């Protein structure tokens, strides 16, 4: 279970997260939706401990992430897999070395087991047999899937996805959605997906939470969110150019 309690974060005086609270149950897929630049990725980086909050707690399995020392944090990170927006594959390594990175660095498994685990992870994302290719030889969609394979290779309990369907064609996007769903069903992992792609959000989420002005303004099942009366949520999920979100921006522009 992941429990985010009143987390605040400022960057150069700009409030990105403002006493944000969110609870994600074990085995649940929670989709965090919101406009670009509203702090979704910042929230993910807090969960993996890359960023530290100014105040508040992020509790994973009873441990408060900002309080942990390096060793304890690394132990938690080995239970976490993160898929970055652009893949963030190490371009000085082959696909196989990328996927097996966590195991090579930390688990000291035998070479045979390592190769098996790499192949297993790659086959799970439908990319069997590309271990020896280089990241530069892959398409955008393939890079995202290899990044996903790298995240699942360490057999994590929690997977975090940063905009998994952004920048790929609709067919690849759908196959990634399917993959997220099937990993959730097969591996019973807890997932947090950050996206502004509503189709993907409805498809993969057990629970949707909308992040707006540093806070979660609505959460619920996809059906509940679709029926939400909050005008901000309504504007966002229907992708309307006019509404309270854009009006606030116009209001600021006038001054």
């Amino acid at each position: 279970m992941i429990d985010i309690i009143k987390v605040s974060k400022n960057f150069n005086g700009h409030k990105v997260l403002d006493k944000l609270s969110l609870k994600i149950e074990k085995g649940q897929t929670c989709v965090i939706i919101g406009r670009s630049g509203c702090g979704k990725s910042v929230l993910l980086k807090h969960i993996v401990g890359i960023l530290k909050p100014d105040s508040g707690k992020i509790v994973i399995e009873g441990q408060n992430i900002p309080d942990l020392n390096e060793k304890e944090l690394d132990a938690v990170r080995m239970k976490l897999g993160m898929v970055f927006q652009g893949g963030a594959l190490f371009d000085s390594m082959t696909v196989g070395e990328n996927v097996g990175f966590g195991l090579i660095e930390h688990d000291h498994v035998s070479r045979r087991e390592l190769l098996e685990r790499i192949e297993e992870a790659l086959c799970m994302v439908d990319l069997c047999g590309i271990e020896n290719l280089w990241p530069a030889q892959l398409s955008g969609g393939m890079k995202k899937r290899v990044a996903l394979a790298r995240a699942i290779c360490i057999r994590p309990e929690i997977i975090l996805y940063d905009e998994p369907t952004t920048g790929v064609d609709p067919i690849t996007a759908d196959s990634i959605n399917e993959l997220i769903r099937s990993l959730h069903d097969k591996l019973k992992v807890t997932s947090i997906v950050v996206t502004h792609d509503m189709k993907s959000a409805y498809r993969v989420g057990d629970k949707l939470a909308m992040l707006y002005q540093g806070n979660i303004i609505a959460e619920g099942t996809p059906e509940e969110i679709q029926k939400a009366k909050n005008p901000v949520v309504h504007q966002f999920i229907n992708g309307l150019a006019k509404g309270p979100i854009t009006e606030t921006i116009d209001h600021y522009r006038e001054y």
Partner: protein
Amino acid sequence: MKNWFLSKKSDIEEALSKFFLDFGRSILGFVYFLGGLANLTGQCFYYMFTPPFNKERIFEQAKRAGYDSLGIVSLVSLFIGFIYALQTAYFMQRIGSEIYIASLVAISLVRELGPVITALVVAGRVGAAITAEMGTMQVTEQIDALETLATNPIRYLVIPRVLALSLMLPLLTLYADVVGIFGSYLICVYKLGISSNMYIHATFDVLFRKDLFTGLVKTVFFGLIIATVSCYEAFNVEGGAEGVGQATTKAVVKTFIMIIAADCFFTALFYFIFP
């Protein structure tokens, strides 16, 4: 008339206040840079002496920094040898003391020119590559990815580079000294007509162990400067390709300044310790 005077004054005031503000900002920026660099260096020393150590990555970086730089270091130091011999000959021939060319070249190369020229060449070649590579890793979130895979970026990326450069720079300098003296030997023996035997004697007679020692010790620190400044700038890249370009320029400029400043410090220090 009065208005004109006032407006002129306010222009001057504006320009002055802008000058002082910019000046203050750049000083603050430099202090901030030194603080960050000290922090990174401190962390480097901590991780350098705590296991696990990754020998393979250190060797890989040592090959890139050392072996791959042999070509350019050879060329530059050979030319420096030629140039220095000819420039010294210009004056020595006037006072009829050609034989001292060998001694002068040996002392200057081993104590000063070899270490500094090698450090600057390596800063331009290896330091810039480090900032560009790691800066790109930073903007493409690869450094964040390392952290999420429970791997400390300082231990994984910085330590191998710091160790490789601090170990390789003294070796490269030693090599540059030899090549530079050889370049000067070619000019003196084949162009100026000094006998080969005399040249070799004149070289080894003036060189003491302390000359070699003071020349090489400072290169260990030059290596440390190149690696830490390049990595620091890479970690602080903001934006995309443009940010990486700016960081690379900053890294090379700051490394050059710091190498010359450190050289000044060490020269003064050794002058008083080993008079």
